């Protein structure tokens, strides 16, 4: 049984201009100890998906429908109280902005210890001692001193390490990382990713990694799900996806990556781009969501939305012309 099984997730927001279908019918699963990456450009619904998993979407104006089964329990049917026992304990989250995600007026130790006291029933002393251990675990030097410091006394990389310490303090089964390295320097990014991988191995947590950085995906994910305009357009094991992307959007994303050794003066010196923007999600889209930017779109695409099909084993694509696309790649 999958650790997390999401079926037909729909997260809609009521706005004065109409309903914004930020996530519109997405299904996926995560196995125990697995790393699933969710990729896509800004505004495609990645972050809303991750917030929905934790039920952190304010309702109203938001509305989450479908089912989110975690260890067999549908999270959408739990009371707020039951949900709180899961947040930070069984499922925890790391956010994109380490500079602002920690509370500036509470000590680092307090912020790590808080989850331990609440979920594991540790007393103040034990929680603080465990916080020191966690800081050491995430590679912060002098943890006994740092535990008494405030976030403004730490660098961005250290703060993200503290966030990871908070997230892993209760040994969660699932860690949701929403662009954990985006706001960091490149050298720090590599360190944080390495840390996440090490800890994942040690704690045995599954990871849902939200990112738009395909380099990060290639490095740590096992399976990749590509989202576009609130829908899943492709899903495949990571090697398979990079080798033979089938959806024109995925092909576009990969085509936009600079490659080592590609010449600045050669014929292909300009990186490929995907023209246009993500469509507005405020009207229902009848055909394929990608039709406005797709190089191979036809009338068929404009009228009928392609279903997600398993074109080759474990490789799902939502495109009428997926096999053609693959042949062309």
């Amino acid at each position: 049984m999958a650790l997390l099984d999401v079926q037909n997730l729909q997260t809609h927001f009521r706005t004065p201009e109409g309903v914004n279908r930020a996530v519109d019918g997405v299904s996926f699963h995560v196995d125990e100890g697995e790393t699933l990456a969710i990729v896509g450009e800004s505004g495609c619904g990645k972050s809303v998906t991750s917030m929905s998993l934790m039920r952190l979407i304010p309702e109203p104006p938001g509305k989450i429908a479908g089912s989110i089964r975690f260890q067999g329990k549908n999270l959408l049917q739990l009371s707020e109280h039951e949900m709180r026992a899961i947040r930070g304990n069984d499922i925890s989250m790391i956010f994109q902005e380490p500079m602002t995600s920690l509370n500036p007026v509470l000590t680092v130790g307090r912020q790590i210890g808080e989850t331990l006291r609440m979920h594991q029933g540790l007393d103040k002393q034990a929680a603080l001692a465990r916080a020191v251990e966690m800081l050491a675990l995430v590679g912060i030097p002098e943890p006994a001193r740092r535990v008494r410091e405030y976030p403004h006394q730490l660098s961005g990389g250290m703060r993200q390490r503290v966030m990871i310490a908070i997230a892993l303090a209760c040994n969660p089964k699932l860690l949701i990382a929403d662009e954990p390295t985006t706001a960091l320097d490149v050298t720090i990014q590599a360190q944080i990713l390495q840390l996440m991988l090490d800890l994942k191995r040690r704690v045995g947590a599954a990871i849902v990694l939200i990112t738009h950085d395909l380099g990060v995906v290639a490095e740590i994910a096992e399976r990749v799900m590509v989202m576009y305009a609130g829908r899943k357009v492709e899903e495949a094991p990571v090697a398979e996806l990079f080798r033979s992307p089938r959806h024109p959007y995925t092909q576009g994303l990969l085509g936009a990556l600079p490659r080592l050794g590609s010449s600045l003066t050669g014929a292909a010196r300009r990186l490929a781009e995907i023209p246009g923007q993500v469509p507005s999600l405020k009207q229902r889209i009848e055909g394929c969501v990608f039709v406005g930017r797709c190089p191979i779109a036809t009338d068929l695409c404009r009228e009928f939305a392609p279903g997600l099909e398993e074109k080759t084993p474990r490789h799902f694509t939502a495109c009428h012309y997926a096999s053609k696309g693959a042949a062309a790649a």
Partner: protein
Amino acid sequence: MISYILRRIVATMPVMAVVALFVFSLLYIAPGDPAAVIAGDQASPADVERIRQALGLDRPFLIQFGSWVWRILHGDLGTSIFTNLPVSSLIAQRLEPTLSLMAMTLVLTILIAVPLGVVAAWKAGTWLDRTIMAFAVFGFSIPVFVVGYILAYVFALHLEWLPVQGYTPLAEGFWPWLVNLILPAVALGCVYIALIARITRAAMLEVLQQDYVRTARAKGLGQNSILFIHALKNAAVPIVTVIGIGIALLIGGAVVTESVFAIPGLGRLTIDAILRRDYPVIQGIVLLFSFLYVLVNLMVDVTYTLVDPRIRY
């Protein structure tokens, strides 16, 4: 930190000097010849001249000011023209009721206004928020004396739950002291509660948007812990500032409240002194209140460092 407090105390001296100069000038800014006012309507010019010399009013302004300050620094606030008692002992007699009233109002205000503001921000846009804010506007709009009389009428005369007026010193027991202070404190606190509830709501609304509040929710913390620990502590700086500024409001309000509830405090003393043109008493009281206000501001600045570790002096 200690050196900061010491520096601040030194820095209050010029402030107090300016206040003192202003307070002393009251005597000259006020219309009429102080000596003539003191002597009264029936006095002969010779009497007036005698008083003028006795008070040193014939000497140059700066010399008068200098000797006045000199005496104050030695604890001598002068003598009341009307009662012939030392101003310092007059003030000392009246200090307890006023400080009790102000302290009680302050405690009551913080206990009521801050939770109201927090709840209003948490439930922003709902009927609960709108109700609280409507009451805040209401509380802000009604003068202290009106609230005072209404409260006295309803709770003292009609329901007979609380005494109509008067004051019992703390030395005669905590309970009688408390019971006598409830109505005046509520009356005086109305405006203050409204002000602080609004500021708390505004500060909290901003803080609740922050990423670290989302983090706190993602950790599975309960609503109370998120609101009152994670958010309120971050919203504390503007709230503490306004509580401090509000002390000035309290000083003015205390004068009126004491009249309404017949509390023998500094407010009554002030009104009596003004009606009798008892300048040394007026000067003493204004000086005291100014000092109090400067002190409160110092306390507010020190409180900042307690609520926000990023603020260091």
